[in-house]
């Protein structure tokens, strides 16, 4: 069965990282997991990975509230880089914010597939992975 090659998790909360990694592993639908503790580190990686589209993640789970470069700033730079990527990168915002201003703002950005309120469950992850796999086969 085909698996998703790379999933990228951007979140400053190390415990959330551990939990999410474990949940992703349990779905058994993903080969690699990339972890970044803030947007800046993630965007630097993506910049270098553009040249080699195999290294680009298939799915990004992005937190909003982070030190140094937060989710919104990451999105700004991600949108600039997006036209240069020759691979479809699906992006989800995963945040504990229930502020409608955040949710509306996120949904107005075309590059954002959806806004998921934490905590994200194994079932949610599995359904996302299956949808993306279906799209990749099509």
């Amino acid at each position, binding site marked *: 069965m085909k698996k998703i090659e790379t999933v990228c998790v951007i979140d400053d*909360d190390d*415990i959330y990282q551990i*939990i999410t990694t474990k949940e992703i592993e349990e779905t058994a639908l993903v080969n690699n997991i990339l972890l970044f503790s803030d947007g800046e580190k993630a965007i630097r990686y993506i910049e270098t990975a553009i040249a080699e589209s195999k290294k680009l993640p298939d799915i990004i789970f992005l937190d909003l509230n982070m030190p*140094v470069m937060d989710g919104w700033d990451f999105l700004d730079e991600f949108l600039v880089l997006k036209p240069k990527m020759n691979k479809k990168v699906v992006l989800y915002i995963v945040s*504990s*914010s*229930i*502020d409608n201003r955040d949710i509306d703002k996120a949904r107005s950005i075309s590059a954002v597939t959806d806004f998921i309120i*934490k*905590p994200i469950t194994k079932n949610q992850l599995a359904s996302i992975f299956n949808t993306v796999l279906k799209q990749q086969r099509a």
Partner: protein
Amino acid sequence: MGDELVEFVKKLFTAEGFMPRWVCGVWSSTHGWMYICANIAIWAAYFTIPFVLFSFIQKRKNLPFRGIFVWFILFIIFCGVTHLVDAIMFWKPLYRLNAVLLVTTAIISWITVVILIKHIPKALQLKTSTELQEIINQQMQELQLANSKLKESETYFKALVNNNPDLITRMGKDLTYQFVNESLTTLSGSQPSFYLGKTPAQVLPTHPHTPMFEGKLREVIETKKMVEYEIHTTAPTVGDGYFAVEMIPLFDEKNEVENVITITKNITEARKNALKLEETIANLNKLSKRLDYKIKTLQDFAYIVSHNLRSPVGNLVSLKGLYDKEADTNMKEFYVEKAFTVADQLSITVKDLSDVVNIGQNTDIAQEWLQFKTVLVTQMNALFAEIESSKAVVSHNFTACEKIQYPKIYLESIFLNLLTNAIKYSSPKRIPQIHFETAVNEEGIITLTCTDNGQGIDMEKHGKKLFSLHKTFHSHPDARGVGLFITKNQVLALGGTISAKSEVDKGTTFIINFNEMQV
């Protein structure tokens, strides 16, 4: 016939062929002389009448039907002459001449008759003196009525102009006063004669608005257009006042400006109300700005509570789920350890949040006079180890404002957070320099600035989030994003503001206006 006529003319002034009347017929002396005397008397009277009439014509210059009078004079003269000749006939029977005279008289008489008949309809239209008198009387009455009406309207108009609270004048094109209303004389305490016939410059040479008044008058006269303007006066008679002046041109028949009506309205009350209204609006704006701050703070707080509590709680739930499913005891222990860490974070977050709640509630916290220098030294002592290890140089200049009335724990917390921040985010490339300074402006706003030469913050990117909770901009291990948030809430709770200027790799300046929102 021709011969007869020649004969007649030749003998016109002779009595040949006729006998004097005395000897023709039987005339008694009485009868003869009665006839002669009567004829002469008639002639004399007929001869006098023309002179009387002539002198009458001369005296009545605009006499109607003058022609009739001329014909009538001729008619009377000729009638008289026939009577004279009739008298002469007693001695000299000039029958031929008499015939010519009679014919002439007859012609003149008929001409007179014709002219009279012709003029009768016209003459009938002539008013008699009684009729004329009546007409005159009637017209006099009408005139009197019109006069009294005019007087009445003039009285109304005067009452209107004089009882008008506005100052009204009529100015001539030579810029002299032609009329001033009572409001003006009452206000100035001068009689109208003080003004009339003089220019404003002659009447009020020292009044600050005289040159402007004259200038505007000239403008109206030149442009032929109405002018409006406003003045603010502080004259001792009226006090601090605002006036609106209107100048309206009045034109003569050649469409040139003959007079200018000036109306000066006292709009002090309206203006003062407008100023009061502006002030009220400004106050309301200030209030709404403060409310906006409050709402923003409350929204932020709700957001912060949601975010900062949901995260660790979500983690705890997830960890419990993993723990339950996990068979490996080592992993189970790992999850428990992580759960404890989350619990510690949660407790810190709850403490931070309750600190902020306390700040928001303690707006009437006790204030005392504090020396900036004392508070700074206290906090430097508290941070002795950090300052020592970072080799930071802390300087200050509190000469502009040495002390402030403020809650002690807030001011200490502000200094502690500013100092900690400056040391924590100092640049490894240079010795940290931290400078505190105070200032006070004319409105009484006390400002504290803290300038460092640290790493700086990209204000364009992070300016808005600088004072938010759990926002950190550097990968410092101790960065928690609490200090500035607490500092901001403390400053805001007491009606102040906090802002920052920064440049990456140059340094940061924090500016605190302690009482900006109170003034």
